[in-house]
C-alpha cells in the first residue's frame, strides 16, 4: 500500500509536468491553428539552456544561481524564442496546406534536436541537479514521503492552470485568443490583431514548454532525444481535451502520469507473454491512450468553409513520361554502377534509392490524398521483420508478399481511428504508433536480435542481389515499376478521387464518397509500399533506421523534394541519402569556417540540414522537384534537345567506360552537361530573335572542354571540396553563357494584377465577384447594403 502511495506521488508529479507542457501546446494550437510538433524540442532546448547557465563553471556552465537561471530560461529566453519562431516561421504558413503546416513544425523539431546535439554534444554527461537535493527536503504524510521538488512541480502546474484560466477568460488578449480559434478574419474585423495574438500565444507556449522541460530534467536523462520525446507524451493529454479544452487536458495528463507511474513500477522485464517481454508497454502508454481517446471521439464534422486557393500545383503525370522516366532511371543506375565500383559499404546510391522507394509510399498518401504519415520508416521496419522472420529459411518472394499484406493491414488498423478525424490526428496517431512500435516490438530480442534486423536478399531464383550493383538495380527497378503503377493509378478514377478528396472533402462526401474508406485504402497502399522497401532492404538494419526521428526526416525530405510527383519522391530520397551518406563521407574531416571563430564540423551541419530544408517549405510548398521539372520540361518537348542530351550522356559514359577519360572527369563533365548545358539547350536549338544563340553555345562547349581538361583527381585534395568546385565551375559556365545569350524568356504565365483593374482593362462583373470572393463577402451582403442606402 505504501509503495502504491509513493508511486501515486511520482505519478502526480509526472502528470503535472505533462499538464504544463500540454497546456502550452493547446494554447498555441487553438490560437494560431498550428500544431507545434516541436513543442517537446523547445522544452528540451530550454533544459539544456538551463543547464548551461546554472551549471558550475568547472563543468562547463556559467554558474548562475538557480533562481536567476529559472527566471532567465522560463520568462526571458523561452518567450523570446517562441515569439521569434512565430514571427519568422509560423506566420508565413497562413493559407498553407495542412501537410505543409505539419511538416514545417516537424522540421523544426529535427532542426532543434540537431542543433542541440551540435551545441551540447553528448560526449559529456550533463546532470541537472534536483531543486532540493537533500534527503530530508520533504514532508511526510503518514508513511508517504513527498519530496519538496515534486511539490514544487505540482504547485507550478496549479499556478499555470489558474493563470491560464484568468488570462484566457478575463483579459482582453485572452478573449481575443479564444476568438482567433473560430475565425481569424472575424477577429481582424473586430479590431483585434491576430498576428500579435498569435505571437503572444507562441511566446506563452514556449514558456510553458520550457517550464515543463526544466522541471522534468532532474528526473530524466539530459539527452536531446529523450527529453524531446518526454514532452511528446503530452500530446496524448492534449488529445483528451480535443486539443481545445484545458480542463480535459489536465485530466488527460493526470491519467497519463498516474498510469505511467503504476505501469513503470509493476511491469518489469521479467513479465513475459509467450516469450515476448511486455516491459515496453509502459513506454507505450501515451500512444495507447492517444489511440483509445481517438477511437472514443465521434466522427469529425466536415467543414464547408469554401475551398482555399491552392498554393501548390502539380501537373498530372502521363503514362508516357512515367515509362520514359522509368527507363532513364534504371538506365542511369546501371550506367553509374558499371562505371564506378560501389564501396563495400552501402554507397549513397543504394541508400538514396532505398529512401526514394520509401518516399514513393508517400506520393499517393500525401501528394495525392493530402494525408500525412509520420511513420513510413516504421512500416519499413515491419516489412523488414516479416522478411527476416519468414524469409530467413523460407521463400523470400513469399515473404515479400506477406510483408506487403501485413503492412497494409497494420496500416489500415492504425489509420482507422485517426482518419475519421482531421489531418492533424493522423500525424499524431502515426507518430504515436512509431514510438509504440519502437518501444514494444522493435525492442523484442526475439524479433530484433542484437538491436538489428538482418534482412535477407530477395531470392528470385534467376536473380539474387548479392553485390551493391545488383541491389541498386533491384531497388531502381522496383521504384520504376511502382512509380509507373502509381502514375497509372493517378490517371484512373481512384486517383482522381484522391485528388478530389484533397481539394474538398465535404464536396466528396455530398457526392456519396465514403471518405474514411477511401483514406484507409490509400493509407494501406502507402504502408505496403514502405513495407516493400523494408523487405527489399537486404542488409542488417539497426533500430535507429526506423524510429520516429528517421520517419520524420524521411517525410520531411520527401515533402521538400516535392511529394506530388514521382520525381519528387526520387529527389527527396536522394536528398536524405546524400545528407546521411554522401556529405559526411565526402567531407569526412572538413570543417567550414563561417567566421574565423566559429568552426562548424560538416557532419554537425548535416544533422540540422533536413530540419532547415523542411522549414523552408513554408515559402515554396510545391517542393523542389516542380522547379526542377520546369527547368527541364522544354528539353523533353524538343526532339533535337532530347536527342542531343541523350547522345551527350551516352558519349561521356562510353568515354569513361573505355577509360579514355577518368571517372572524376566524367563526373565533372556530367555536372556541366546536366546543370549548365541541358537547361539552355532548347532555346539554343530554336533561337529567339535578337539573342546570341551561337556564341552562347560556343561558351558552353568551351566550358565543357575546359572542365574536362582539368585533372580533378589530383588538383584538389578533399573530395567534398572537389565536388563543390565542379558545381562552382558549372555555375560560372552557365552564368557566362546566359550573359552572352541575353535575357532568357520567362515561362511563368503572367497573372493579371488586380491592382491594375480598371486601369489597363475595364472592370467586369466577374472581377467584382472575384474580389468579393477573396474578401469573403457574399453578393447578397452588397446588395443589401446598397438597398439599405437607397
Amino acid at each position: 500500500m505504501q509503495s502504491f502511495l509513493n508511486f501515486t506521488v511520482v505519478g502526480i508529479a509526472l502528470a503535472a509536468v505533462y499538464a504544463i507542457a500540454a497546456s502550452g501546446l493547446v494554447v498555441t494550437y487553438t490560437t494560431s491553428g498550428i500544431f507545434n510538433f516541436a513543442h517537446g524540442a523547445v522544452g528540451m532546448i530550454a533544459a539544456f539552456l538551463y543547464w548551461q547557465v546554472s551549471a558550475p563553471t568547472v563543468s562547463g556552465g556559467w554558474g548562475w544561481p538557480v533562481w536567476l537561471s529559472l527566471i532567465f530560461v522560463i520568462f526571458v529566453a523561452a518567450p523570446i524564442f517562441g515569439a521569434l519562431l512565430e514571427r519568422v516561421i509560423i506566420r508565413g504558413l497562413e493559407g498553407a496546406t495542412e501537410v505543409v503546416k505539419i511538416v514545417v513544425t516537424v522540421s523544426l523539431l529535427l532542426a532543434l534536436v540537431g542543433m542541440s546535439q551540435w551545441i551540447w554534444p553528448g560526449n559529456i554527461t550533463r546532470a541537472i541537479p534536483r531543486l532540493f537535493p537533500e534527503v530530508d527536503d520533504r514532508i511526510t504524510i503518514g508513511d508517504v514521503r513527498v519530496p519538496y521538488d515534486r511539490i514544487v512541480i505540482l504547485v507550478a502546474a496549479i499556478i499555470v492552470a489558474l493563470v491560464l484560466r484568468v488570462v484566457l477568460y478575463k483579459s482582453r488578449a485572452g478573449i481575443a485568443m479564444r476568438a482567433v480559434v473560430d475565425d481569424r478574419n472575424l477577429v481582424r474585423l473586430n479590431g483585434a490583431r491576430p498576428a500579435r495574438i498569435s505571437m503572444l500565444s507562441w511566446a506563452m507556449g514556449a514558456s510553458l514548454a520550457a517550464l515543463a522541460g526544466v522541471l522534468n530534467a532532474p528526473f530524466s536523462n539530459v539527452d536531446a532525444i529523450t527529453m524531446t520525446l518526454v514532452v511528446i507524451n503530452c500530446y496524448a493529454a492534449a488529445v483528451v481535451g480535443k486539443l481545445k479544452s484545458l480542463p480535459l487536458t489536465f485530466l488527460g495528463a493526470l491519467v497519463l502520469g498516474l498510469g505511467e507511474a503504476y505501469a513503470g513500477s509493476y511491469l518489469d522485464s521479467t513479465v513475459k507473454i509467450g516469450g515476448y517481454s511486455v516491459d515496453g508497454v509502459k513506454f507505450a502508454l501515451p500512444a495507447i491512450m492517444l489511440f483509445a481517446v481517438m477511437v472514443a471521439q465521434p466522427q469529425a464534422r466536415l467543414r464547408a468553409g469554401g475551398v482555399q486557393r491552392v498554393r501548390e500545383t502539380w501537373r498530372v503525370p502521363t503514362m508516357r513520361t512515367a515509362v520514359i522516366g522509368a527507363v532513364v532511371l534504371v538506365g542511369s543506375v546501371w550506367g553509374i554502377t558499371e562505371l564506378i565500383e560501389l564501396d563495400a559499404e552501402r554507397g549513397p546510391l543504394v541508400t538514396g534509392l532505398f529512401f526514394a522507394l520509401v518516399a514513393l509510399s508517400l506520393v499517393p498518401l500525401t501528394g495525392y490524398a493530402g494525408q500525412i504519415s509520420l511513420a513510413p520508416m516504421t512500416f519499413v521496419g515491419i516489412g523488414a521483420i516479416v522478411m527476416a522472420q519468414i524469409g530467413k529459411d523460407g521463400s523470400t518472394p513469399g515473404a515479400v508478399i506477406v510483408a506487403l499484406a501485413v503492412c497494409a493491414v497494420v496500416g489500415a488498423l492504425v489509420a482507422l481511428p485517426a482518419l475519421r478525424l482531421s489531418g492533424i490526428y493522423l500525424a499524431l496517431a502515426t507518430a504515436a504508433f512509431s514510438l509504440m512500435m519502437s518501444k514494444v516490438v522493435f525492442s523484442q530480442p526475439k524479433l530484433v536480435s542484437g538491436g538489428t534486423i538482418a534482412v535477407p536478399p530477395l531470392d528470385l531464383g534467376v536473380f539474387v542481389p548479392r553485390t551493391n550493383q545488383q541491389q541498386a538495380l533491384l531497388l531502381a527497378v522496383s521504384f520504376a515499376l511502382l512509380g509507373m503503377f502509381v502514375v497509372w493509378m493517378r490517371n484512373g478514377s481512384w486517383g482522381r478521387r484522391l485528388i478530389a478528396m484533397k481539394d474538398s472533402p465535404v464536396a466528396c462526401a455530398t457526392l456519396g464518397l465514403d471518405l474514411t474508406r477511401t483514406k484507409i485504402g490509400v493509407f494501406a497502399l502507402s504502408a505496403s509500399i514502405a513495407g516493400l522497401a523494408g523487405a527489399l532492404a537486404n542488409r542488417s538494419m539497426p533500430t535507429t533506421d526506423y524510429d520516429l526521428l528517421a520517419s520524420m526526416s524521411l517525410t520531411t525530405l520527401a515533402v521538400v523534394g516535392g511529394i506530388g510527383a514521382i520525381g519528387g519522391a526520387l529527389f527527396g530520397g536522394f536528398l536524405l541519402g546524400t545528407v546521411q551518406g554522401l556529405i559526411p563521407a565526402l567531407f569526412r574531416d572538413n570543417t567550414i569556417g563561417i567566421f574565423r571563430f566559429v568552426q562548424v564540423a560538416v557532419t554537425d551541419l548535416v544533422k540540422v540540414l533536413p530540419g532547415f530544408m523542411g522549414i523552408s517549405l513554408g515559402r515554396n510548398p510545391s517542393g523542389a522537384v516542380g522547379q526542377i521539372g520546369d527547368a527541364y520540361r522544354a528539353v523533353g518537348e524538343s526532339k533535337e534537345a532530347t536527342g542531343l542530351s541523350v547522345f551527350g550522356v551516352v558519349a561521356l559514359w562510353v568515354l569513361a567506360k573505355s577509360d579514355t577519360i577518368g571517372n572524376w572527369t566524367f563526373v565533372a563533365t556530367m555536372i556541366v552537361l546536366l546543370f549548365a548545358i541541358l537547361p539552355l539547350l532548347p532555346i539554343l536549338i530554336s533561337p529567339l530573335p535578337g539573342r546570341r544563340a551561337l556564341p552562347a553555345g560556343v561558351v558552353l562547349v568551351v566550358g565543357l572542354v575546359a572542365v574536362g581538361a582539368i585533372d580533378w583527381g589530383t588538383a584538389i585534395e578533399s573530395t567534398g571540396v572537389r565536388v563543390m568546385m565542379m558545381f562552382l565551375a558549372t555555375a560560372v559556365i552557365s552564368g557566362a553563357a546566359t550573359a552572352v545569350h541575353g535575357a532568357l524568356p520567362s515561362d511563368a504565365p503572367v497573372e493579371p494584377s488586380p491592382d491594375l483593374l480598371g486601369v489597363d482593362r475595364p472592370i467586369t462583373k466577374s472581377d467584382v465577384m472575384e474580389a468579393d470572393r477573396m474578401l469573403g463577402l457574399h453578393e447578397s451582403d452588397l446588395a443589401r447594403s446598397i438597398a439599405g442606402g437607397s
Partner: protein
Amino acid sequence: MALLETRGLTIRFGGNLAVSEVDLAVEAGAVTGLIGPNGAGKTTTFNMICGVLAPTSGQVILDGRDVSRLGTHKRARLGIGRTFQRIEVFSSMTVRENVQVGCEIRQGWGRTTAPGPQLLAPKGAELTAADEVDLILDRLGLTEHAEVRAGQLSTGRARLVELGRALAIRPRVLLLDEPASGLDDTETEEFGLLLRQLADAGLSILMVEHDVPLVMKVCAQIFVLDFGRIIASGTAADIQQNEAVLNAYLGSAK
C-alpha cells in the same frame, strides 16, 4: 407526400439558436424556395439536411424514410445532392474532371442503389459515363471551359460546375445554395429555364437564393426563414403579400 421533409429541425451553437423547429416540405418534381435575410439559418438548414451538421433535434425524412442518423455520403447515395454557398469545387482539377469525378463516384456506389431519373438525357437513351459528362457540360454551357482548372473560374461558373457535379450523381433532391449569385442577368434568365427543365424531368429542387425575382418566377412553393424560424410559406403570390415577410426584409415598415 413530399419527397423531402424536415420535422422540427433545430440546431444550437452554444447559446445561439441558429435554426429552430423548421418544418420544410419539398414536393417531387418541383422547385421549392427557401429565402430569408442574411444569417437566417438557410445554409445551416442545408448542412443539416445533407448531414454535414448534426441537428440538436429534429428529423430529415427522404421519401418516407428517416435519414437523420445517416452520414453525409449515405444520404448522398439515397439521392440528396447539393451545391455550396462558399465554393467547394475541386480546384486543382479541370471543369471536365470535376463532373467526371462525380460520375465516377456514383458508379462506385451506384450498383447497389437504384439510379435516379436520367436527367437531361433524351428519353430512353443509353449513355456512357463520358457521354453523360459531355451532356452535363453542354447543358450547363461549360463545354468551352471544359479544360480550364476549376480553381481559376469566376464564382458564377464555379457554381455551375458544382451544379454539374451534383447532377452527375443523379440525385432525387438537389439543394442549391445561392446558385445564381455570380451570374449576370441573361445568365440568370437561362439558369431559371434550366431549373424548370430539371424539375420537369422529375428532379426535386430546394433552392436558397437572394435573387427574389428569380425565386418568385421558378419556385412553386416558398418558405421564408428569419432568425432560424419559418415565418411564412406558400406560393409566390402569398409570400409577396405577407406582412411578416415584408417586415423581415425591409425592417419594420412604418
